[in-house]
């Protein structure tokens, strides 16, 4: 396209710079200017001496953008999560966003013995939203291991986190129990404005942002009665292709849904459906009720896959009595 030498291109640029004010393109940045950006400014003066017009440029002053360390952490459930007493591994969802201007990783911690609530949930684990569907999926969403799989977020990126608690059996209906998730920048925390020399991305200086580099967020549970309800306890067992239990591609997850009624009375015409998690595929022919196979088609038997509820298994259990036997649904999926 262009045959001129580099010198000619450079000369043309100099001419343009000298003859006109520098043209200016606004960069469509969504959020903060990225760490490491150089901000330059240069003034131009025009003047006349004895009829001759002169144009001069000032020096160029350069200011570099340091990495600001900042985050937001927000509880996602719209209201206290309703749980019966004695149930295990109940998830509160939180959204962690890197609102700094460079990549950062964050360490997480949970705390459930808080003041101001009616009962203390029992802290179990923190899980990452491994399949990115904003919902806790047992067996798929990886267990958080401090220092092992700290979430790494690019500037403006976010992730969901699940704080799991067991609900004590002696909690009573209507009681509230709070649990808190904390997230802290691994690059540094401290008073806002603290400079951490060389600690940022690519050795840039890092500056602690307005939140001090760490934040807490609280969520809560509300105890509801089991009497007029059935409880579904869902568990998952992972078997990977290499003889282990890692949730890797190709691993099989066996889900078991135990349907029980507690309290008093019988719940009639119970229908259970369960969505096949994102990034997994249902293994045809694996749906069973109380260890008896149920065909995948919509037919005379008690359940189907995808027919009654798209993308979900659906099983009609009928009546579930408090003093009757529990009902167990199993099926398997393979991680894509």
């Amino acid at each position, binding site marked *: 396209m262009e045959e*001129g030498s580099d*010198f*000619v291109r450079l*000369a*043309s640029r*100099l*001419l343009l710079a*000298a003859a*006109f*004010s*520098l*043209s*200016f*393109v*606004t*960069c469509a*940045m969504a*959020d*903060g*200017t990225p760490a490491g*950006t150089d*901000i*330059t*400014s*240069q*003034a*131009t*003066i*025009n*003047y*006349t*001496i*004895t009829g*001759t*017009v*002169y*144009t*001069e*440029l*000032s*020096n*160029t*002053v350069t*200011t*570099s*953008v*340091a*990495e*600001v360390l900042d985050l937001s952490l927000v509880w996602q459930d719209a209201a206290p999560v309703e749980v019966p007493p004695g149930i295990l591994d109940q998830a509160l969802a939180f959204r962690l966003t890197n609102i700094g*201007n460079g990549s950062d990783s964050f360490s997480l911690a949970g705390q459930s013995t808080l003041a101001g609530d009616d009962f203390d949930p029992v802290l179990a684990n923190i899980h990452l939203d491994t399949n990115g569907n904003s919902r806790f999926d047992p067996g798929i969403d990886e267990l958080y291991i401090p220092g092992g799989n700290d979430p790494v977020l690019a500037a403006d990126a976010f992730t969901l986190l699940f704080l799991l608690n067991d609900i004590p059996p002696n909690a009573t209906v209507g009681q509230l129990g709070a649990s808190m998730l904390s997230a802290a920048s691994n690059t540094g925390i401290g008073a806002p404005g603290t*400079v951490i020399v060389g600690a940022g991305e690519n050795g840039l*200086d890092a*500056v602690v*942002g307005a939140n001090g580099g760490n934040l807490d967020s609280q969520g809560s549970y509300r105890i509801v009665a089991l009497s007029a309800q059935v409880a579904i306890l869902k568990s998952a067992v992972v078997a990977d292709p290499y003889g282990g239990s890692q949730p890797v591609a190709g691993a099989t997850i066996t889900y078991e849904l135990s349907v029980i009624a507690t309290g008093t009375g019988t719940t009639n015409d119970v229908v259970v459906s369960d969505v096949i998690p994102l990034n997994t595929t249902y293994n045809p022919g694996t749906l069973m009720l109380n260890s008896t196979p149920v065909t995948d088609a919509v037919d005379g038997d008690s359940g189907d896959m995808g027919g009654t509820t798209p993308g979900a298994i659906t099983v009609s259990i009928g009546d579930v009595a408090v003093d009757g036997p529990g009902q167990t649904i199993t099926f398997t999926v393979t991680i894509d």
Partner: protein
Amino acid sequence: MNRAIIVTVLVLLLVGVANASVELNTVALTEITTTSETGQEVTTLVPAGKVVPGDEVIYTIHFVNSGTEPASDVVITNPIPDHMVFTKVEESPDGASVSMSADGGSRYDSPRNLTVKDAKGQPRPAKASEFTHVRWVFQDSLEPGAEGSVSFRAQLQ
């Protein structure tokens, strides 16, 4: 054609250097606030070596006529730096009028007269965040030895 451009540039640069009567020097400063022993807040200006989003930078352009002849029709122009939004003019010499551009420096006017085109191509008043240049037009000649500063503030996005 290309050779002609090179020669023109070289001549321009040589002439410019030989007759650099009015010189400019730009510095970038930020304000830091500290609390004195008596508990009063003291704001000082320091060179803006490092900034983070939200910081305000004060660009100060010092001018001096180091020649022997007065300079007339003096105009100082500064593009608003990339990633920054103009916030205010800090300092203007007596008798200098300030105008802005919102179209990359083609047209300058008082801020209230500047427009940009909306999504339908209709003109609407320009916002401060859309200003691309700030300009000072001096009414008076700059006598030999005269000096001063113009400055403006901009905030890092």
